[in-house]
C-alpha cells in the first residue's frame, strides 16, 4: 500500500485561532444537549458559585472552532474521503473549566495516523487534537477527535 500522503502533516500545528467565548453560545449549546443547571444560563447564579461568568458545558470545545476570529487556521488541512469517514471517538481533557468571557487561543494538529482492522476491511485512524490556551499561555483544555477512513 502507498504511504498515506497525510503522514507528512503529523505533529505539524496549523496557524492558531482566537476565540472569544460567548454567553449566547454557551446557553445555545447547553440547551442543545439537555443541560439544565442555571450555571450554564444565569450569570448571577454562576457568580454565586464562584465562577467569573457562565461555565462551559463539558463538550463545548467541539463547537468553539466555528467562533474563531477570521484569519486563524484551526489545524492542518488533512485530505480524506469524506464519504468513507466515521467518527470513532472523542476525548476531552480539562486543566480548568471554560467560562464565558475567556479569550482562548486554539491550536490544531494532526497527532497521529494509525490503522486498524474494521468489520469491512482496514481503516485509517486519524487523531486530531485541538488545544485551547488562555491569554497567559496556560492550557485550559484539549480535545482529541479520533476519525477513521475506510481504505
Amino acid at each position, binding site marked *: 500500500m502507498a504511504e498515506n500522503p497525510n503522514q507528512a502533516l503529523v505533529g505539524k500545528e496549523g496557524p492558531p485561532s482566537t476565540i472569544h467565548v460567548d454567553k449566547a453560545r454557551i446557553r445555545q449549546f447547553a440547551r442543545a*444537549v439537555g*443541560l439544565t443547571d442555571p450555571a450554564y444560563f444565569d450569570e448571577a447564579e454562576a457568580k454565586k458559585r464562584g465562577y467569573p461568568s457562565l461555565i462551559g458545558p463539558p463538550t463545548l470545545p467541539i*463547537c468553539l472552532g466555528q467562533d474563531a476570529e477570521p484569519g486563524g487556521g484551526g489545524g492542518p488541512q488533512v485530505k480524506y474521503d469524506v464519504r468513507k469517514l466515521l467518527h470513532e471517538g472523542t476525548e476531552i*481533557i480539562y486543566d480548568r*473549566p471554560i467560562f464565558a468571557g475567556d479569550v482562548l487561543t486554539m491550536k490544531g494538529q494532526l497527532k497521529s495516523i494509525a490503522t486498524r482492522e474494521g468489520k469491512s476491511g482496514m481503516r485509517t485512524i486519524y487523531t486530531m487534537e485541538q488545544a485551547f490556551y488562555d491569554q497567559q499561555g496556560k492550557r485550559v483544555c484539549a480535545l482529541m477527535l479520533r476519525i477513521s477512513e475506510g481504505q
Partner: protein
Amino acid sequence: MAAPKFEDVKVGDALPTYVHEKVTRTDLVKYAGASGDYNPMHHDETLAKNVGLPSVFAHGMFSMGLLSNVLVNWAGPGSVKRFDVQFRAITWPDDKIACTGKVTGKREEGGQKLVDVEIQCETKPGTRTIIGSATVAVV
C-alpha cells in the same frame, strides 16, 4: 441533588441516570446549529436516503453531550477533568437514549480528589451506542 463527598464515594456506586426519551429531527437540527456540525447526514433526509440510509442519524457528539449530564448532575458543572468516549453504534430518530455511569476508582492526585467512572449510552437493552470513561473532581 447534593454533590458527592469524596469519603462517601464507593467503587461500584451508580451515578444518577439521565434519559433522553426520544430523539427527534428537531433535536438534531438544534445540535447542528449549536455545534456548527452541518454534515447533511444529520438533517437532510433526502440526501441520507439517496446514499442508502433509512433516515438521518444523530451526531455522535450529540449523544456525548447528553452523556455529560450524568457527570455534571452528579459532581457539578466544573467537575469534569477528563471525558473519553468511543462511538459504537448509530443513534436514529425515535431512539430513547439512557445515559448511565458507575464509579470504578478514587484517588488523590496533585491535591485533587478524583473519581474515575465508566459511562455509557444505550438505545435499547444491549445496544450500547457509546462506551467510555471519565474522571471528575469532587470535594
